[in-house]
């Protein structure tokens, strides 16, 4: 980070003073999320999430590939996080920054390691053909807490995505049907993991100072953060408090409860957005259903 | 880097000391530091060894044998025919930043590459000693690949010599599992832990003796400070039979013709003696290991 992006002493002290009085710059309470907007579509698997001024876009695509040798009957899920100087001014383009590693590792752990998406169902022909689902996550604007926004964008894009239907025609040949021919198939989503990030400031004996969903100024001055990933079954998928201010166990447990209730609200928002998007698509599909095209024949070894 | 500098007075002290055959730690010009050798420390590896020079350099080597395919070079029929019947050795030397702060970040890249290439050249050529043909499983298709990874854990001068000594000990310690070739050319590795063999030819693996030209004389087994005072370094690789298995000048500086011959002679005689000593230590290690196996083996660093 360049020196330009740093905050002055005045700003740091002001923000701390206001937090001590329980006020945040954007008039939020300490447990408030910023306004969340999830825009899905018009294409399958296209999701744009706005959390206040933080904007993240996720786009899902798929193709038929060979499976990994060690997992011949599983599809492949690739999460690709694109960090660009667009949202991170002063980014060192050489090696991956610490920030980028944390974001991509947390998403990998939340979604891949915890099997949020069913991969076995993506196998077409064992050892030969599987679906590779690729999620490209672009960070458009960073006003803090880009990780939570990214997790919402990724999982909602995956839940919205539909892959083309296929039929196996021979030993090694398959036909991929276009959307007009056969309705595309949604992915099987086992659970919906959502990140909730807390930022901790000074922690003293009598008063803990911390907030949910920090904006970039709060992120800059916080003394430590903690990300809890919880899914719709109230399971903690990832908990990551990598150093920073030491906390008492009670605080951590309390935070996990807060996170659970936040996740419920966010998942409701995602479900609503999915409903709206699906309604639109079903209208579109009705119009198209009369057209019948010949499916594309794919012939690969 | 401030650590790579030596003051003129230190330099003068060392040069005069070498002239008088008396070095800072009390050794003569051609005295080696005490070598402490341990084997069989890493259970994930097929063979391992650790060598230390008292209060100085510390090298850990792990050897892993894995089944790989034989690489065929199609340009020269005659050469390809020989290579098709051989296993492979892959060497890698890494200087850990633990050993010295100059190895932090990318600081070790150059020295890692230099040492890796040197070790690889010596062990992969005909002078390497190992019987590579014995490592072949199915000619032209599959063979054992011997991965030798050396890790420099502490830096007190004279790393190269110690790396070779440790590699030799680790190869001695290496157990290659027995294989059975089934009808469909599937290679089956024996499950029985007791069914193993040593790599043939380990005793002919050369070691290196590095001679440092300081002033007009030369010394062996230099410390960090002495290395900084060195004008030119000559490493002579010697095997048990007293054959020269490689010579390489390292670093800047030049060597007079007459001195070169003298240095080669010294290198050879010191090397042969050292190998004899090392072989004795290896035999002793076997006994110690057998003893240790009865008890629960505890950490090598903690015990040291």
């Amino acid at each position: 980070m360049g020196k330009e992006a740093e905050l002055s002493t005045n700003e740091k002290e002001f923000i701390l003073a206001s937090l001590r009085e329980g006020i945040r710059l954007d008039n939020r309470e300490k447990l408030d999320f910023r306004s969340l907007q999830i825009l899905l579509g018009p294409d399958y698997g296209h999701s744009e999430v706005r959390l206040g001024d933080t904007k993240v876009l996720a786009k899902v695509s798929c193709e038929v590939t060979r499976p990994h040798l060690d997992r011949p009957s599983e599809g492949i899920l690739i999460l690709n996080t694109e960090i660009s100087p667009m949202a991170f001014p002063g980014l060192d383009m050489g090696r991956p920054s610490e920030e980028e590693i944390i974001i991509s590792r947390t998403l990998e752990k939340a979604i891949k390691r915890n099997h949020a998406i069913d991969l076995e169902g993506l196998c077409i022909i064992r050892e030969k053909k599987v679906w590779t689902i690729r999620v490209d996550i672009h960070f458009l604007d960073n006003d803090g807490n880009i990780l939570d926004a990214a997790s919402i964008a990724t999982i909602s894009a995956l839940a919205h995505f539909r892959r083309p239907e296929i039929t196996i025609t021979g030993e090694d040949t398959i036909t991929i049907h276009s959307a007009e021919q056969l309705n595309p198939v949604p992915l099987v989503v086992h659970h919906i993991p959502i990140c909730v990030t807390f930022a901790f400031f000074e922690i003293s004996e009598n008063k803990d100072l911390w907030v949910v969903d920090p904006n970039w100024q709060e992120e800059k001055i916080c003394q430590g953060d903690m990300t809890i990933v919880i899914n719709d079954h109230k399971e903690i998928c990832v908990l990551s408090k990598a150093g920073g201010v030491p906390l008492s166990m009670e605080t951590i447990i309390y935070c996990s409860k807060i996170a659970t209730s936040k996740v419920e609200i966010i998942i409701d928002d995602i479900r609503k957005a999915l409903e709206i998007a699906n309604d639109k698509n079903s209208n579109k599909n009705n119009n198209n259903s009369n057209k019948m095209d010949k499916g594309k024949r794919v012939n690969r070894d | 880097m401030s650590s790579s500098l030596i003051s003129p007075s230190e330099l003068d002290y060392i040069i005069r000391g070498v002239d008088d055959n008396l070095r800072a730690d009390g050794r003569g010009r051609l005295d080696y530091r005490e070598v402490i050798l341990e084997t069989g420390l890493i259970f994930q590896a097929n063979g391992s060894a650790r060598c230390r020079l008292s209060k100085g350099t510390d090298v850990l080597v792990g050897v892993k044998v894995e089944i790989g395919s034989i690489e065929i070079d199609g340009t020269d029929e005659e050469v390809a025919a020989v290579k098709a019947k051989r296993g492979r050795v892959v060497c890698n030397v890494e200087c850990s930043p633990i050993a010295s702060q100059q190895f932090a970040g990318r600081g070790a890249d150059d020295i890692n590459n230099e040492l890796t290439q040197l070790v690889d050249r010596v062990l992969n050529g005909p002078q390497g000693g190992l019987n590579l043909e014995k490592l072949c499983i199915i000619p032209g298709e599959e063979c054992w690949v011997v991965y030798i990874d050396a890790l420099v854990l502490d830096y007190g001068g004279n790393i190269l010599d110690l790396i070779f000594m440790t590699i030799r000990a680790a190869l001695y310690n290496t157990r290659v599992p027995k294989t059975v070739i089934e009808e469909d050319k599937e290679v089956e590795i024996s499950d029985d832990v007791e069914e193993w063999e040593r790599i043939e030819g380990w005793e002919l693996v050369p070691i290196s003796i590095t001679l440092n030209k300081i002033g007009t004389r030369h010394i062996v087994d230099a410390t960090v400070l002495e290395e900084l005072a060195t004008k030119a370094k000559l490493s002579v690789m010697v095997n048990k039979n007293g054959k020269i298995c490689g010579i390489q000048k390292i670093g800047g500086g030049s060597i007079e013709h007459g001195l070169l011959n003298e240095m080669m002679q010294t290198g050879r005689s010191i090397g042969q003696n050292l190998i004899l000593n090392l072989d004795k230590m290896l035999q002793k290690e076997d006994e110690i290991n057998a003893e240790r196996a009865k008890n629960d083996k505890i950490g090598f660093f903690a015990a040291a």
Partner: protein
Amino acid sequence: MADRRRIQGPEVSVAPIILKSPNKIQLLDENLCRRNGRNLEDIRSIYLKTGLISQANGSAFIELSKTKIVCGVYGPRQTKIPAFSGKGNLNCEIKFAPFSCPKRRPPYRDSQEKELSQLIYEALTPSIRLDLLPKSTIDIYITILENDGTASCLAAAITCASVAVADAGIEMLDLVPACSASYINGQIFMDSDLIEEKRESGSLVLSYMPSLKEITHILQSGEVELNLTSQAIEQCTDSCSKIYSIMIDSLLLPIQNMK
């Protein structure tokens, strides 16, 4: 990490297998004469010319039948981040052209090239008066256009680079000719080519400053008796003296032309 800026060749390239009956190559005929008519102790004829690269401060080109090497020297220039030391820096970079070997070489520097760069650096530093050039850097870039035996290539590269440094007018103690030899069946083959190199049991590369009688670099591999090594060293120093006169001629030529 692959280099994205250029169009990549295939990741693995395999030389075509030439369908030819594996006839055994005879390295020596009954008169102890080698395939190309040389005797055991003969080196190949050398073509050496300076000043081919107009933009470089000094340059040289060397050709030993199939082996062809160009070298450019730039500097002395100011060192960008000078570490404290009273001496100048020497920066050597050697690169095999992608088409120089039987197998295609990747366009980025591999570990062998890095090591050769290091060896050339070690061979040349004793000859250059770096103590006169504090806070400065000399860059030596060597490109091997055609490789006919790696050991002889290394020797030729050292010779070529030394002439190029002299051509750049940088102060030196002496020129550094270098020569290689192969040990095949207990015999010493001077200046061996690729086919001989593939059959060798060991090799020696020696660089030598003839006026000072000092060896600037030595690299031997293979299992060899000590006295055979000593003999090879003698032969190499002799050959180096021959190469030395060729180097001097190549440097004198442009000066004589000036007159």
